[in-house]
């Protein structure tokens, strides 16, 4: 079972929830926030193995190339330019779509691989921890996320997604069986919760909410969830000491009081999503 943890707004507590939930459930953890992955700080997996994430880029066989320039014209991303007797390639712009290979009548185009990120895998207790790390300066994270999610292990996978509602998140949603939206009781949190919920609804996956940094008397989010029929799995109360423990990169669920809170959420996860 693959459970995606999303948020819309950054900083609401996706990694906080994901790592603690994975720890409590003994589930595998997958960090898909490949631009800024943080989960390993808390789970501290050991025995790390590293795999390069490679994408295609076109290579031109000069002996066959007639400099017709059709590949340049067909590229929607301006990754190729025709200059004197050369076809120049701009690899960071290349989407590896294959259009240039298809259009070439002279069989002059083939593909090689280049590295734009890595996947790291290790163990936390008996569970598998994986994360993707995008190389700094690479504009597109999607290939790293796809490779990470195409090779999920059996059992329960807690998938820590990127913030926002863009392609990075959309691609992750294809692989999840259910989604948990982490929000915070602020105007920003509520505003972005609605955007994220709207997105997840288009994927027709069961959805639930966890309210982090919870303050007594919160009503807006509760009302919204009731109106939208979204179960609230639990709330994590706001306390400055939590922020301090988190800041040190420690697992909050190692403290009894919080262990109970996360155990309750974990039980609710099982109840709500199994029913779905």
């Amino acid at each position, binding site marked *: 079972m693959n459970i995606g943890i999303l948020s819309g707004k950054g900083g609401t507590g996706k990694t906080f929830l994901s790592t603690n939930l994975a720890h409590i459930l003994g589930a595998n953890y997958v960090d898909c926030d490949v631009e800024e992955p943080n989960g390993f700080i808390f789970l501290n997996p050991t025995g790390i193995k590293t795999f390069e994430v490679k994408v295609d880029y076109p290579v031109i066989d000069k002996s066959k190339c007639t400099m017709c320039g059709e590949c340049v014209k067909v590229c929607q991303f301006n990754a190729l330019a025709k200059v004197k007797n050369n076809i120049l390639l701009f690899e960071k712009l290349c989407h590896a779509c294959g259009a240039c290979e298809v259009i070439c009548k002279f069989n002059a185009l083939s593909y090689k691989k280049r590295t734009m990120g890595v996947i790291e895998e290790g163990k936390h207790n008996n569970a598998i921890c994986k994360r993707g790390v995008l190389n700094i300066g690479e504009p597109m994270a999607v290939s790293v996320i796809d490779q990470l999610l195409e090779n999920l292990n059996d059992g329960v996978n807690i998938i820590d997604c990127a*913030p926002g509602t863009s392609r990075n998140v959309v691609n992750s949603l294809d692989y999840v069986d259910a989604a948990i939206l982490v929000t915070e009781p602020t105007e920003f949190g509520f505003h972005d919760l609605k955007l994220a919920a709207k997105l997840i609804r288009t994927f027709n996956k069961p959805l639930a909410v966890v309210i982090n940094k919870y303050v007594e008397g919160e009503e807006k989010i509760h009302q919204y969830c009731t109106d939208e029929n979204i179960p609230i799995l639990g709330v994590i109360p706001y306390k400055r000491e939590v922020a301090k423990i988190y800041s040190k990169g420690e697992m909050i669920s190692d403290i009894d009081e919080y262990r109970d809170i996360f155990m309750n959420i974990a039980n609710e996860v099982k109840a709500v999503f199994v029913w779905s």
Partner: protein
Amino acid sequence: MELVVLSGKGGTGKTTIATAIAELTKNVVKVDCDVDAPNLYLFYKGSNIKKEYFYGRKKAVINQSLCIKCRKCEEVCRNGAIKSGEINLYKCEGCGTCTLVCPSNAIKLKDKKSADIFITKTDKGIISRAEMDIGSNGSGKLITSLRKNAKRYSDENTLTIIDGSPGIGCPVISSVTNSDISLIVTEPTRSGMEDFKRVAILCKSLGVFMLVCINKFDINEEISKEIKIYCNEHQMKVVGKIPYDDTVMKSINELKSIIYYENSVANTAIREMWKNIKNEISN
């Protein structure tokens, strides 16, 4: 002058600080480049004086009456965007490879609206912002449009404040390139520090002048010190250390900038930071 507020990690306080600086400045234009989760405009009452459709990448469209269901398009699509003759608009990148192989010319690339972009006039100046269509991508082209639109409302004395998005990908790269100053807002947590380093490396490679703000610094003073040391070693100046302050949460929920809360310690520290930033600008 363009000042971009960045963070790497989400939730460090970009929007809070961007808004505060905007409120402390007379001649200001605001650009909300956090297009996935745009929050800046929530602080302001205003009306949209301009609304435009924004067209991002083209998308493939299949004319079903011409389609002979040979599925060649599906075989050739490297994004897995075509299944059973239907195009998944979320996955389609508009590369056009499918259009090249279709034997009956049934597929074309068409412009597709991916966002609405607005110029919103408020009592505190103009906001250039976007509302993304669900599942669309906040591309560099969109960010560029927002910055370009804002430019029309600014003169040589205007301070343009750009509220950036988290991460280090294309939208961040587009928000920060060719700006005058990037103010990186970080927090003293292990996660915050790791993300801060990555976004700092990115900014350095783009040749952007960087200033640093340590927000909620007293949550963990050891890590705050580590951040300061890292900054010293990498020729970055820490212009502000903002203490953790419950009033900030209150200010967000009252949708009023923190600078209007007189007794707030964060308010005092932010004002002090702004003085430091202005000093840096004039040097």
